């Protein structure tokens, strides 16, 4: 066991932290958010130049062959600075689905384009009725000769309005909640019959509702097994949750730092309010929740690469529970300890709070994953 970063990992950490420190202060972020796509294309190009968009991919596809620890390093730094660019949607989800499920031709076509910052992806999976159940898919994929015809509606597709390609899950067989019979299709965002309605999200990003009406895709658009893509989707979703856990840790860490700084400078009753024990203890509780969350984010990163799907899923679900609960506590207390300024748009802490709140709802909240861990027989090995 080894908690030390390798030399390459340390370099990665330094460079990504330097980049966000130089270019992602809170005022700049406000500007990036006002750009048409809700993020900065300049920064996206900077990530490409630094190699951040290439991290998880194999060298033959223009990547670095990095693992979950490298992703964790990047996401934690992004979390701290509230980075808006579609790293999760494009690199982790889109790139992950292609990398893990795509054919050699698909990988060769798409992964270098992702790594180079030339192509954006979105993963259209959630539906109105599915809540957090990954197997609940009603969008239909009807076989018609050599092609498939897609019909259905996809909800809250992260960065769905700016993506060049949408990865759409759709049912080729079986009933709505069957595990089998789900396929995954690469759809050009401009394909006839695909409509998207973009909107801002609570945490300052963008998402879209996507409607598919008689959208025709060729056999070359199928990612993986058209009748059994759920294991692929689950695997990449687990990786996305591990990445989000690291992002949440970065955001919580920043909230704690801002809060402690505030307590040391804000004066009331003739003294800094950080001299009051009740507030010291509250920030100590935030620190403990943060460190427990950090531990679980590391555990998730370690287990995200596990080849045993049941163990991997249980570990990542457990991390998501911890992240959800810690995020809620740290976020609420950060606001409370800041007082009024904490609930204003102009101050960073409220935006961090909103981000960790939305992270909890992504891919299943704490209650959802607690039920999964419980059903799976718990975490302690007999």
């Amino acid at each position: 066991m080894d908690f030390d970063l390798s030399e390459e990992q340390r370099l990665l950490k330094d460079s990504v932290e330097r980049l966000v420190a130089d270019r992602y202060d809170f005022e700049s972020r406000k500007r990036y958010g006002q750009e048409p796509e809700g993020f900065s294309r300049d920064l996206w190009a900077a990530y490409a130049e630094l190699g951040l968009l290439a991290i998880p991919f194999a060298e033959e596809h223009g990547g670095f062959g990095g693992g979950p620890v490298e992703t964790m390093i990047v996401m934690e730094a992004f979390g701290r600075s509230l980075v808006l660019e579609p790293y999760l949607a494009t690199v982790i989800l889109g790139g992950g689905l292609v990398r893990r499920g795509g054919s050699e031709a698909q990988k060769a076509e798409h992964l270098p384009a992702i790594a180079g910052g030339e192509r954006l992806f979105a993963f259209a999976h959630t539906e109105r009725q599915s809540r957090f159940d990954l197997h609940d898919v009603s969008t239909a994929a009807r076989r018609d000769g050599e092609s498939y015809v897609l019909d259905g509606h996809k909800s809250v597709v992260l960065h769905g309005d700016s993506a060049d390609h949408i990865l759409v899950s759709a049912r080729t067989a079986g009933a709505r909640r069957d595990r089998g019979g789900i396929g995954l299709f690469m759809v050009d965002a401009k394909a006839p019959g695909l409509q998207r309605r973009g909107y801002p999200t609570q945490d300052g990003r963008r998402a879209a509702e996507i409607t598919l009406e008689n959208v025709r895709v060729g056999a070359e658009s199928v990612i993986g097994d058209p009748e059994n893509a759920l294991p692929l989707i689950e695997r990449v979703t687990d990786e996305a949750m591990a990445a989000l856990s690291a992002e949440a840790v970065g955001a919580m860490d920043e909230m704690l730092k801002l809060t402690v700084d505030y307590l040391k400078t804000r004066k009331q009753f003739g003294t800094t309010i950080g001299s009051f024990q009740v507030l010291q203890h509250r920030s100590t509780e935030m620190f403990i929740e943060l460190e427990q969350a950090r531990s679980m984010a590391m555990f998730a990163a370690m287990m995200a690469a596990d080849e045993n799907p049941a163990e991997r899923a249980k570990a990542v679900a457990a991390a998501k529970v911890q992240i959800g609960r810690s995020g809620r506590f740290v976020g609420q207390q950060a606001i409370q300890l800041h007082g009024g300024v904490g609930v204003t748009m102009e101050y960073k802490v409220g935006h961090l709070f909103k981000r960790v709140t939305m992270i909890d709802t992504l891919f299943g909240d704490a209650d959802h994953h607690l039920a999964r861990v419980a059903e799976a027989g718990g975490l302690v090995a007999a």
Partner: protein
Amino acid sequence: MDLRFTDEELAFRAEVREFFRTALPASIREKMILGHHASKEDLVAWTRILNQRGWAVPHWPKEWGGTDWTPVQQYIFRDELQLAHAPELLAFGVNMVGPVIYTFGNDEQKRHFLPRIANLDDWWCQGFSEPGSGSDLASLKTTARRDGDHYIVNGQKTWTTLAQHADWIFCLARTDMAAKKQEGISFLLIDMKSPGITVRPIQTIDGGHEVNEVFLDDVRVPVENLVGQENKGWDYAKFLLGNERIGIARVGISKARLNRIRELASLERIGDVPLIETPRFREKLAAVEIELKALEMTQLRVVAAESRRERGKPDPASSILKIKGSEIQQATTELLLDVVGPYAMPYVPEEEGRNEPTDGPDWASAAAPTYFNWRKMSIYGGSNEIQKNIIAKAILGF
């Protein structure tokens, strides 16, 4: 960064596990599984089994009977010891006064006391807290006045765990009455057979006798029983309390208890449904398991950082281990109480050699007393509020 155990570490775990499986006497294991206390004889026997294997004090320096295990191996050893339902060794000797003696004691003290601690030839107890000095330990009033080659010790110690069995007590006493609080305190080793020592039991709410008051009236202590320098005892005490926090997460104990709770919750039924299959209970259990997994990872992080720290300098992050570790242990006692249901009620005194059958299942009788007794965990070893003060000051910089 690779958070998995290496093959060598896994092999070490298997070796340790196998040893505990075969070497721990079944009678002791059963007692521990039922949540009862190990007797003095049990603990002496078990310590000597470990000592024979060279594993009674693995965290000590090699020349005093320790090992050269890595911090990770030390962790695995502790974890397996606890998972095996083995009694923990008497902390007052192996974790508290032992390290103080090998770090600050003189050669004669090391030669005499250390092997006797490792073999539990001497039963040690801790003379720190006083009626007026709990969290504010440095306000202690027990005095040690120099009289020729003796100190004359007067005062009262309290919460002295298992003093009824003790051969020796390590005491903090004031040797310089004029100095301010933390200065002027010395660390003394006192023979419990000395004239002037009286032990009075304190009964705790579970009905047990674990803690005591110890009265010291004109107790004569030879000056060679002073550890280190006179008036420097507070430094040694801080060192000792820092060490105390390392093992205090007791992750293995909570794991073993949660495994046991899962097993018992599949025997208890609500109607035809085993308790473990009711969503409400199993989610409560899973929530504690997740907290415990997080704590285990946090502990491993502290362990990994330990190898990079100056020896004997405690990591303030170990205060997290104390706080979360005690909260989780207490949560396991609540869960067991939930499992037991009505047969939590009968009060069954825990007596050696008792052979009349208990009312209700044999595993039920300890549930409530353990719940009551374990409220102590967030109080002792520096209360959780004191731990928060430590984090606030040492980590957050207030």
